[in-house]
């Protein structure tokens, strides 16, 4: 399985993401944001956490206009997989690849801690390694993770089981405790918590391994 990790000025979880993907068996290439194309044969594009372009204007807004973002759009249109974590989730909403937007945390404070997440569906390449109802622990570290969308979109996300993770104790005010959102074809996942920071015993937990291993197993057989 070939994966590309996008790197923007201000990305700071790009190497963690690459380590997590390689640990699960992926062949990973780092791709600078000025590139107009992804390496050929890429199955998964990972958009990492960090503070791309200093979070200027709106988190992820400037990264969403970078040359590589157009290549990401084409990759997803062709049915490719994408995973956006934290700032990567913000980039995916700003590109329009996922609905909604991430606003300032309701309590206006940066939140940095480990949170519990309830797995709501195993029906995606990202969550097939879990069982619905499992509770996993992933770190969060963000100032703008308060997921907002209109009532109509929320009903659609719920009806199509496109909310794969919910917070057990909402840290940021997200509507309906939403921690993650899937695209209509279930091949694009955006999430605020960091699975790549929970793949090694030294991280204090390994609940994230199942996400990367599940993704690899589904993409290897695809």
């Amino acid at each position, binding site marked *: 399985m070939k994966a590309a990790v996008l790197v923007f000025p201000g990305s700071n979880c790009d190497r963690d993401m690459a380590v997590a993907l390689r640990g699960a068996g992926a062949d990973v290439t780092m791709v600078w944001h000025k590139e107009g194309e992804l390496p050929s044969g890429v199955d998964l594009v990972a958009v990492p956490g960090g503070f791309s372009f200093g979070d200027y204007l709106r988190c992820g807004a400037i990264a969403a206009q970078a040359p590589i973002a157009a290549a990401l759009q084409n990759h997803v249109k062709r049915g490719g997989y994408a995973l956006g974590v934290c700032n990567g989730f913000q980039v995916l909403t700003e590109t329009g690849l996922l609905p909604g937007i991430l606003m300032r945390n309701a*309590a*206006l404070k940066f939140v940095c801690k480990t949170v519990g997440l309830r797995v709501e569906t195993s029906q995606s390449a990202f969550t097939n390694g879990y069982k619905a109802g499992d509770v996993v622990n992933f770190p969060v570290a963000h100032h703008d993770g308060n997921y907002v969308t209109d009532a109509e979109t929320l009903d659609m996300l719920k009806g199509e089981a496109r909310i794969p993770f919910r917070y057990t104790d909402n840290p940021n*005010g997200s509507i309906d405790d939403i921690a993650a959102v899937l695209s209509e074809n279930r091949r694009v996942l955006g999430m605020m918590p960091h699975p790549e920071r929970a793949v090694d015993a030294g991280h204090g937990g390994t609940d994230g391994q199942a996400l990367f291993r599940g993704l690899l197993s589904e993409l290897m057989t695809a």
Partner: protein
Amino acid sequence: MKAKVHVMLKEGVLDPQGAAIQHALGALGFAGVNEVRQGKVILLDLADGTTEPMIAEMCEKLLANTVIESYTIEIMS
């Protein structure tokens, strides 16, 4: 030519920063502040001949996220 773009959260979108400002004003003793909404002002210095539809395109593509924000364009000179 110069233009001023105002970007505001749409009606009904919760504005936690505005709410914090309102709370702080109350704490300072300013009574009767019913609501505070915080937005952005973006000043653009543009080549002559730039049209309002071109500025609107800038707003749609980058300056505002129209999922939650609205914008108004003011041509200044």
